[in-house]
């Protein structure tokens, strides 16, 4: 697996520390959205569907850093919007690296090469560009609703790798994804020199009868099983192997909606990165006053029935890893053997 040892150690000590203190709910990754503005308009992307005055706004670096301190998670993911359109992204990243936070800057990479050439970033073990790549060329360009973006992103990845940056990819997969073509895509990404890949099913919510929910989950399991069965040794995934096993239907995890809390212009988003049911003014208020029992598959909440997305389930996998000898052993075995 492709997570550097120092990062694994940081996460392990953080999680164990929380568990030893008896903290029932703790965040693992802060999803920090400094702006909603984007230079793509991917179909169905709820992040960009706001009136102009909202899209023009962004958080200050100081406010971002306060949120990071408040939250205390060891990793900070910066999605958006497109973070490379945030005018202070260079300073924000520098400040986060100085605080030894592991930063995943999630970008569509349209501006990446330009910003690298302009010297906006310095390679660091704490900084990883997480490039949005939703599959092979045709599939990706279709997902982002613009031709040619796959090639732009691939070019930027090459440039970042050449300059010594950590680069990962993140792929959101929807119903209809061709699993065999995705295996070829994994080869292509490794050929580009990325450190690791992240995959997750997309989130969809429609009111449907129980049987339809069941079938949707079965389809997701089938997709990921076909895609990840007998993974090639050279494929590296920048995520928990147990989460990948969960996607393949080999392991069951409930959602941990507080695992990846989201902070943006509106405050702390309730309850998770995907559902938008209101905002808390402080992180403490989010953690203390959210009716967590009403979320996750077990709760029966219709909006959570089909969800297998990484932001809720990867923290569950990590908690299981460090919460039991069995979980730890399973993770070590999967990591060492590469078998899922």
């Amino acid at each position, binding site marked *: 697996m492709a997570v550097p040892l120092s990062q694994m150690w940081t996460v392990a000590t953080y999680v164990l520390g929380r568990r030893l203190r008896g903290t029932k709910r703790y965040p693992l990754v802060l999803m920090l959205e400094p702006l909603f503005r984007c230079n*793509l308009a*991917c*179909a169905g992307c709820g992040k960009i569907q706001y009136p102009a*005055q*909202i899209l023009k706004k962004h958080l200050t670096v100081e406010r971002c850093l306060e949120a990071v301190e408040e939250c205390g998670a060891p990793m900070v993911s910066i999605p958006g919007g497109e973070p490379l359109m945030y005018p202070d992204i260079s300073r924000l990243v520098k400040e986060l690296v100085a605080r030894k936070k592991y930063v995943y800057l999630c970008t569509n990479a349209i501006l990446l090469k330009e910003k690298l050439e302009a010297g906006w970033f310095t390679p660091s073990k704490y900084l990883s560009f997480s490039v949005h790549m939703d599959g092979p060329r045709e599939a990706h360009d*279709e997902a982002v*609703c*613009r031709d040619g973006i796959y090639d732009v992103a691939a070019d930027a990845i090459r440039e970042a790798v050449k300059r010594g940056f950590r680069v990962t990819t993140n792929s959101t997969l929807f119903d209809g994804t061709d699993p065999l073509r995705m295996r070829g895509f994994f080869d292509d990404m490794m050929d580009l020199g990325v450190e690791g890949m992240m995959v997750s099913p997309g989130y969809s919510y429609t009111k449907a009868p129980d049987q339809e929910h069941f079938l949707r989950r079965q389809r997701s399991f089938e997709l990921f099983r076909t895609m990840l069965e007998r993974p090639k040794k050279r494929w590296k995934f920048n995520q928990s192997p147990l989460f990948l096993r969960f996607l393949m239907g080999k392991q069951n995890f409930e959602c941990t909606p507080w695992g990846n809390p989201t902070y943006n212009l*509106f405050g702390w988003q309730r309850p998770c990165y995907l559902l938008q049911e*209101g905002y808390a003014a402080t992180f403490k208020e989010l953690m203390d006053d959210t009716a967590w029992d009403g979320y996750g598959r077990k709760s029966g909440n219709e909006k959570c029935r089909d969800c297998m997305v990484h932001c809720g389930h990867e923290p569950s996998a990590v908690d299981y890893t460090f919460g039991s000898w069995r979980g730890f052993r399973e993770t070590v075995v999967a990591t060492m053997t590469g078998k899922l």
Partner: protein
Amino acid sequence: MTETEPPYEGWVPAPDVPLTEVVDRAFDYRGNVTLDLCDGNALTGYLFNRDARAREPFVQMFDAAGEGPITIGYADIRTIRFTGKDTAAGNSYAAWLERKAVAKAEGLPTPQR
């Protein structure tokens, strides 16, 4: 808003629609709304938050110039009109697939965004 809900752009709620329901609709709405206040003033902007369970239920919004957040109690709101363009309307993934299929059937290039 779900695909099956009616469009709310331009909606002026009838007087018998409970305010809590109107607020919930405004919270889900991806466009500016206008709050008609009990003191006779009006405030237009994006309503991004509401808490009906608070001791004094409130909404929060950024005004049309992006200033805010502005907090207003439910008790101060007479009604809410859906005056701004719905930025989510027609922008779902399903709508995009439909447009693409139509373009393909007509032999036109894939629509770009």
